């Protein structure tokens, strides 16, 4: 009898050349893709050369994306981007994009089919866990791991135990994948999944689009998770066909696979949620936070910068104006999404509503550029972190929410439920 395994264990076993791996085991595994960005790759490139590196192990398996401080925000960040660009050209990397083609790494790589189901991926960025939505094992590491991976094509791992999160019930109107993951983080805590992997399951997850699944996997790290996977299904396969640049491997968890624990969530009575400063686990329904007055609204990022997210925001912003007190920044995650939004008329809606549209960048999410907060300012953001000083001054505040809540809040000038801007059905639509 073969030993039962979860999807994560199957991917790690395959990459380590083993029939079976168990939690706690240390393995050395072959990587399908390794990734770096303009903050983390410069350190890795220096270490790569310092270790005597001449050629990356495989020019088709190293991806470099400059997205954090690009378009270059100052001379120092321009130097970092230049380092990446020169390295990418010298190494003839297949997966390198320059401005005009480049976008937010964790949206760009799946969109371009660079990461595919069944892959083992490391990225020198904590939100690398986003690709778990494809049924890949993807985890964030540091620059040194990336340097070693670029040299050897391998990385060491301790096989993590798995927590299964099962979502059941009928999703109420205005409740999105963002609310599901905030609900899970609130229950697990910001270190509840530390050294562990999450597996998202249940009928609610099966009903999510790939965009929604990416949003959920993206924030696994906010509970400390090493990765956050969704077992591939018809939705995954449909997304991958014609897009995947390598042959996908569709792994599933065995029915008798062992989980450290299983958590169940009923979403039927869920309301749109907000994570208050200064932890993503500090979650409350938006209906209880309507007194929070805002200075900025930020819609985009690797968490919620996909076309589906922009459509959700545009539906509410159509024909309306954002509050004159709220700077509203829309940042589509990739040029493809930008063009699609233009084609669908979303850009017209946003600009008519008084929003600013940014090129694809991580900028505002990490207080890098393109939307930094001053002392005492408050933002609602569809991003993933609300730590002290995350978006600017240490005395500024970030409230995390879905694109719908962010758009409604931008219009109202304070945290708001989408129903509030939709009009007449608001009162009967909201249940206590």
């Amino acid at each position, binding site marked *: 009898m073969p030993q039962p395994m979860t999807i994560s264990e199957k991917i790690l076993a395959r990459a380590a050349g083993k029939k079976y791996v168990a939690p706690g085991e240390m393995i050395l595994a072959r990587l399908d893709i390794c990734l770096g960005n303009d*903050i983390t790759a410069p350190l890795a490139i*220096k270490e790569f050369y310092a270790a005597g590196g001449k050629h990356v192990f495989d020019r088709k398996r190293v991806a470099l994306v400059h997205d954090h*401080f690009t378009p270059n925000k100052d001379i*120092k960040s321009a130097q970092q981007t230049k380092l990446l660009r020169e390295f990418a050209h010298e190494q003839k990397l297949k997966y390198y994009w320059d401005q005009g083609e480049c976008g937010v790494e964790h949206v760009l790589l799946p969109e371009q089919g660079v990461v595919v189901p069944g892959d083992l991926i490391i990225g020198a960025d904590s939100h690398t866990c986003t690709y778990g939505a494809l049924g890949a094992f993807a985890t964030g590491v*540091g620059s040194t791991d990336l340097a070693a991976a670029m040299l050897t094509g391998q990385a060491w791992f301790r096989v993590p135990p798995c927590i299964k999160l099962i979502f059941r019930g009928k999703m109420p109107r205005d409740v999105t994948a963002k609310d599901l993951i905030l609900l899970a983080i609130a229950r697990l805590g910001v270190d509840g999944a530390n050294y562990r992997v999450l597996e998202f399951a249940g009928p609610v997850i099966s009903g999510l689009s790939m965009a929604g699944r990416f949003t959920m996997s993206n924030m696994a790290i906010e509970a400390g998770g090493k990765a956050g996977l969704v077992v591939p299904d018809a939705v995954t396969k449909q997304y991958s066909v014609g897009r995947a640049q390598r042959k996908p491997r569709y792994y599933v968890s065995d029915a008798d696979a062992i989980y450290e624990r299983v958590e169940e969530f009923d979403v039927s009575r869920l309301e749109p949620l907000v994570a208050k400063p200064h932890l993503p686990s500090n979650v409350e329904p938006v209906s209880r936070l309507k007194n929070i007055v805002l200075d900025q609204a930020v819609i985009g990022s690797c968490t919620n910068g996909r076309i589906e997210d922009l459509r959700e925001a545009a539906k509410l912003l159509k024909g309306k104006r954002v509050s004159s007190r709220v700077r509203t920044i829309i940042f589509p995650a990739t040029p493809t999404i930008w063009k699609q939004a233009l084609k669908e008329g979303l850009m017209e809606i946003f600009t008519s509503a008084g929003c600013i549209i940014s090129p694809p960048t991580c900028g505002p999410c*990490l207080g890098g550029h393109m939307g930094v907060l001053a002392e005492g300012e408050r933002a609602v953001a569809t991003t993933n972190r609300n730590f002290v000083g*995350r978006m600017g001054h240490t005395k500024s505040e970030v409230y995390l929410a879905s694109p719908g809540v962010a758009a409604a809040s931008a219009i109202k000038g304070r945290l708001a439920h989408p129903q509030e801007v939709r009009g007449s059905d608001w009162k009967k639509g909201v249940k206590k």
Partner: protein
Amino acid sequence: MKFQGKTYKFGDNVNTDEIIPARYLNTSDPQELAAHVMEDADPVFSGLVKPGDIVVAGRNFGCGSSREHAPLALKTAGIACIVAVSFARIFYRNAFNIGLPILECPDAASETQAGQEIAIDAGQGIITNLITGKTYQVAPIPPFMQELVELGGLMEYVKKNLAA
């Protein structure tokens, strides 16, 4: 691996945005990073810290982004070792990969106060508070991680294995 030094104390969930804010990540120069280390958690820390000092912290130290600039800034500022109730996974990995030893010891991390002198014997897994005289037994650092620290980090390990 033995260390002795003065302690600085931090609470739970100290994240990498506090250890080294993103506004300084437009460089990877270790000295520049060290000049701003812990700035958003304690603005005076970088001016006070001396080589050999030890950071003591609560749960989930180093949570958030994968920026290796965080352990690098601490190491370059002179921090010899970090003792915490627990560490976030990526920070834990990064610290060993750059040769900065860190230890999980809930009792020692909770009971040690700021400004105390502690001695750490990482090989034996013993932490001694030289002010209170109390000793703590720590789970030993896994052998692979000890080798990383002894060699000076993962790249030295990789070089050694590529040469072999």
